[in-house]
C-alpha cells in the first residue's frame, strides 16, 4: 500500500512538473518581449526577496531542528573522558555556530540588500589589505585556541595507562564478522599470548595455553560487565577485516585491525542502573557498536555493556571466572606446527609474544 502511494505521488509529481514547465513556456511565449534568459529588475527583486526569505527560513529550520532533536541525542557521557570531550565539543560548537550564523547571515543579507537593477551601480572595491589581514589573523587565533585545547585532551585520552602505571582492568576485545568476543585478563591482569594460527573451533581467540599468563584468562560472549570508577583498558584486535570498537556512551572509539594490536581505555562513571534512571528508560543499555564497514551484517554487530558498581561487578567477575576459566576449556595447539612470529616487534604486525603486560589489580 505504501509503495503504491509513493509511486502515485511520484507520478503526480512528474505530471505537476511537466505542467509547470508547460505554463512557463506558454507564458513566456505570450509575453514575447524579453528573451527567457534575460534577468529583469523584477527577477532581481524576486530572487533578492527569496534570499532574505531563505535566510529567515534557514535559521528557523536550524533552530527547530535543534529544539526537536536535542533530546534525542546521546545522554550525558558515562565516562570521565566523555565528560571532558562533551565540554570541548560544546566549546567548539559555540565557536563554529557563531561563525556559521555570521557568515550565512551576511551572505544572504548582502544578496538581498544589493540585489541589482538597471539603474544601480556597484562599488569598485577590488582589495583592502587591512581587512584581509584582519580575517587571516582572527581565524588564526581561533585555530590556535582550538588546536591547543584539542591536543591537550587528545594527548590525555590516548595516553598509554600501562606506561603511566595506572590501576587498570584489562579486557581484550576481539572482532570478527559479525560479533565481538571479550577476554578478561584474570587475576594477574595479564593477557596470555595469542596467535591467529592457533585459532580453532574450540580455541576461538587463538590463545597460547602454554603461556602462563593465559591460565587465568576467561572469555565472555554477548554481554560484558565493567566496574564503575575503575579505568578499563581494552586491548583490541581483529580476526578478519578491519572493524571499529565504538563506545558511543563513553565517547571512545578505536579501530581493530588484523595484525595490529590497538587499545583504548576509559573510566566509567555512571552505572547502567543510574543511566536508566537518568534517561527514564528501564530498558536502557550501553552498547558497543562496530563502526567500520565490515561486511553485509556490519549494522548488526554489537555487544551489550553493563556498568556495575564495584561490589556487584566483582561478584559477577568471580562467578564468570569460576565457570569459564580459559585453560580448562581449550585444547592445546598442535605441537611444533606453528611458531609465534620470530621478531616480537616486526614492522606492521605489532603482535608481541608477551602481548599485553599490565599491572596487577590491587
Amino acid at each position, binding site marked *: 500500500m505504501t509503495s503504491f502511494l509513493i509511486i502515485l505521488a511520484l507520478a503526480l509529481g512528474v505530471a505537476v512538473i511537466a505542467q509547470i514547465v508547460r505554463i512557463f513556456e506558454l507564458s513566456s511565449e505570450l509575453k514575447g518581449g524579453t528573451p527567457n534568459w534575460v534577468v529583469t529588475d523584477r527577477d532581481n527583486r524576486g530572487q533578492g526577496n527569496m534570499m532574505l526569505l531563505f535566510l529567515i527560513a534557514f535559521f528557523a529550520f536550524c533552530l527547530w531542528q535543534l529544539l526537536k*532533536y536535542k533530546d534525542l*541525542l546521546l545522554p550525558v557521557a558515562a565516562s570521565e573522558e566523555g565528560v571532558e570531550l562533551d565540554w570541548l565539543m560544546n566549546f567548539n560548537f559555540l565557536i563554529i555556530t557563531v561563525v556559521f550564523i555570521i557568515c550565512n547571515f551576511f*551572505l544572504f543579507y548582502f544578496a538581498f540588500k544589493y540585489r541589482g537593477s538597471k539603474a544601480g551601480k556597484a562599488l569598485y572595491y577590488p582589495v583592502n589589505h587591512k581587512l584581509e589581514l584582519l580575517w587571516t589573523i582572527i581565524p588564526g587565533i581561533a585555530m590556535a585556541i582550538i*588546536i591547543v585545547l584539542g591536543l591537550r585532551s587528545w594527548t590525555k585520552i590516548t595516553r598509554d595507562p600501562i606506561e603511566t602505571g595506572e590501576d587498570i582492568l584489562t579486557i581484550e576485545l576481539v572482532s570478527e564478522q559479525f560479533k565481538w568476543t571479550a577476554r578478561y585478563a584474570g587475576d594477574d591482569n595479564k593477557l596470555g599470548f595469542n596467535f591467529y594460527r592457533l585459532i580453532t573451533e574450540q580455541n576461538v581467540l587463538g590463545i597460547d595455553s602454554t603461556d602462563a599468563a593465559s591460565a587465568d584468562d576467561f572469555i565472555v560472549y554477548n554481554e560484558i560487565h565493567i566496574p564503575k570508577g575503575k579505568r578499563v583498558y581494552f586491548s583490541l584486535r581483529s580476526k578478519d577485516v*578491519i572493524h571499529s570498537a565504538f563506545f*558511543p556512551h563513553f565517547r571512545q572509539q578505536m579501530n581493530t585491525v588484523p595484525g595490529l594490536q590497538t587499545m583504548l581505555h576509559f573510566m566509567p562513571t555512571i552505572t547502567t542502573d543510574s543511566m536508566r534512571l537518568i534517561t527514564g528508560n528501564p530498558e536502557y543499555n550501553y552498547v558497543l557498536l562496530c563502526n567500520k564497514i565490515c561486511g553485509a551484517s556490519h549494522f548488526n554487530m554489537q555487544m551489550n555493556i553493563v556498568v556495575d558498581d564495584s561490589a556487584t561487578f566483582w561478584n559477577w567477575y568471580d562467578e564468570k571466572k569460576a565457570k569459564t576459566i580459559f585453560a580448562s576449556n581449550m585444547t592445546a595447539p598442535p605441537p611444533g606446527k606453528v611458531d609465534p612470529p620470530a621478531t616480537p616487534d616486526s614492522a606492521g604486525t605489532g603482535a608481541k609474544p608477551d602481548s599485553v603486560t599490565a599491572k596487577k589489580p590491587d
Partner: protein
Amino acid sequence: MSANHGHEHKDHHDDHHDDHHHHQETWVTKWVFSQDHKMISRQFLVTAVIMGVVAMLMSTLFRLQLAWPGEKFAFVNWMLGDKWGKDGIISPDMYLALVTIHGTIMVFFVLTGGLSGTFANLLIPYQIGARDMASGFLNMFSYWFFFASSVVMIISCFVESGPASAGWTIYPPLSALPQAIAGSGLGMTLWLVSMSLFIVSALLGGLNYIITVLNLRTKGMSMTRMPLTVWSFLITAILGVLSFPVLFGACLLLIFDRGFGTSFYLTDIYIGGQALDHTGGSPILFQHLFWFLGHPEVYIVLLPALGIASEIISVSSRKPIFGYKAMVGSMLAIGFLSFIVWGHHMFLTGMNPFLGSVFVFTTLLIAIPSAVKAFNYITTLWKGNIVFNPSMLFCIGLVSTFITGGVTGIILADSALDIPVHDTYFVVAHFHIVMGLSAILGMFGGVYHWFPKMFERMMNKKLGYLHFWFTFICAYGVFFPQHFLGMAGVPRRYYTNTEFPMFDHLIDINIFVTICAIVGAFAQGIFLYNFFYSIFRGEKAPENPYNSNTLEWTNGGGTIHGNWHGALPVVYRWAYDYSKPGKKEDFVPQTVPLEDGELDAGEDQVKH
C-alpha cells in the same frame, strides 16, 4: 622566452587558420573522436550528467531502505531482481554496493572527471586566449579513457556476485577477500580496472591543462591577469598529477594481493574457518596510500567549483572579485596543505597519537585560507549590483554550503572531538555539504553560465530558478539533520538503524531526510529538461550575454574551430574591471587597452 616563440608561431598560423581545419573534418572526427576542446568538454559533460543521474538514483534507493526499513517496494524488486531485491526489500549486500558505487561515481566520475573535464577543457583555452589545448590528441584520449572507465564501472554493477561493496574507500582486507563480502569478487576487480582507466584519463587531462596554461597564454595574459577559474584548474591539475599516481600504486598492490598471493595489505587473517597464508603486510598501509590521493582529491573536487564561483560571483555582482591575490594565494595554500593532512582520516587506526597531533595542526591550518576565501566572496557581494542569473544563485548557494560544511570540518579535524563522531553520520553530513554540495552547486552554476559557450544557446532562467530553490532547500533538508544523527552516535553505512533499540527514536529524522532526497531528486528533472531542451531549442545566445570581461566572450559568438576568427585577442588588463569609476560601461573587457595613467588590477583604488 618560449612564450614569445609561441606567439610568433601563432600569429603566423592565424591567417590560414580557417582553411587548415574545416575541410578535414568528418562526422567521426567532429562528433566522436574529436580533438577540439569544446567538443571534448561537451562529451565530458554529457557523460557526467548520465553518470550523475545513475548515482543519484542509487542514493534514492538506499535512502528508501533507511527511512522505511523492511518496507516492500514493488519497483525495488523490479529494478534489482529477486537476488538483490527479494520481495521489494534491498538486501544488505546490495545496500552496501549502492552506497559504494554512489560514492565512487559521485566523487570520481561526476565531480572529478565531469567537473574538471568539462570546465577545464572548455575554459582554459578560451580564457587564456588559445586555439585549443596543447595536445588535442591526448585530450581526446583523456575523454575516451574516461568513457571506457565509466562503461566498466557500469558493467561492474551487473556481474553475478554484485558490484564492489566495501565502501568507496575500498579498505582491505574487506576489499581484498571475496570470502569477506560478495562484492569483493569480480565486482571489485572491475572497480579496480575502471579506476585504473580513470587515473589514466585524469593524468592525460591534467598534464594537458598544466602545459596549456603555462605555454599557450596569449599576448599580455600574464599569470597574474588570469581569471581565477584558470588558476583553480591549474592548481587542481597539479594536485591530480601529483596524487593520482599514488592511488594507482595502491590499486596495483591491491590487485597483487587479490590475485597473485602477495601480502602488501594482508596479515594474520582468520576467515571462513581458516587462517590465510598472507603474512607481514599492513592494512593501514593502504589507507595511507589511499588518503594521500584521497585528501587532495577533496580539493580536486572543490577547487574548480570555487574557481567557477569566483568568476560568476564577480560578474554577477558587477564588482571585481575582492582580493584577487589573496584568492590565488589561498588556493595555492589549500593545494599545498592538502598534501600533508591525509592522516586526519586515520586518527583512530591505531596510528601513533603524536603523529595524529601533527595532522590536527596541518588540517586546522587549512581553515585559514578557506575562511579568507569565504570572507572574500561575501565582501564581493557587498555594495554590488547583483544580477540574479541562475548561475549566481547556485554560486551563492555554494558559498553557503562551503561555510556550513566547512565549520563542521573544524570538529572533525580536532582529533579528540573526532573520536565520538568518527565514521558517524556527522562525517556524512560534513563532507556531503562541504564537498558534495559545494562542488555540485558550482558545477550547476558553471553549466548555466557557460551553456552559451558550449551550445550557442541559452538556458531558461525561470526553470533555472525553480531548479535552484528545489535543489538548495532539499539539499539542506537532506544533510543538515544528519548532523544530529551523527551526534546521536549513528554509524554510517548501516543497512538499517532500527535493528536494535538504541536508534529507534531517530526514525523520524531518517524519514524527513529521505523525503527531501526524493523531492530533490525529482527537481533534477527540471534541470535535465531545461538542459536537453535548451541544447536544441533554447534561445540563440548573443556574443556576450552577461557583459563579462573574459576572453571567451570576445570571439563574435558561436563555436568556431580555433576559437577566434583571425588573430588571437591581446590582453591588456586583469579580468575583473567591473564598475570601474570613469568608464562608460560597467565592464571593461580584458582586450581593452589601459588608458593613460590607468593602473591594472585595481591598483588605482589602492593608491587613493
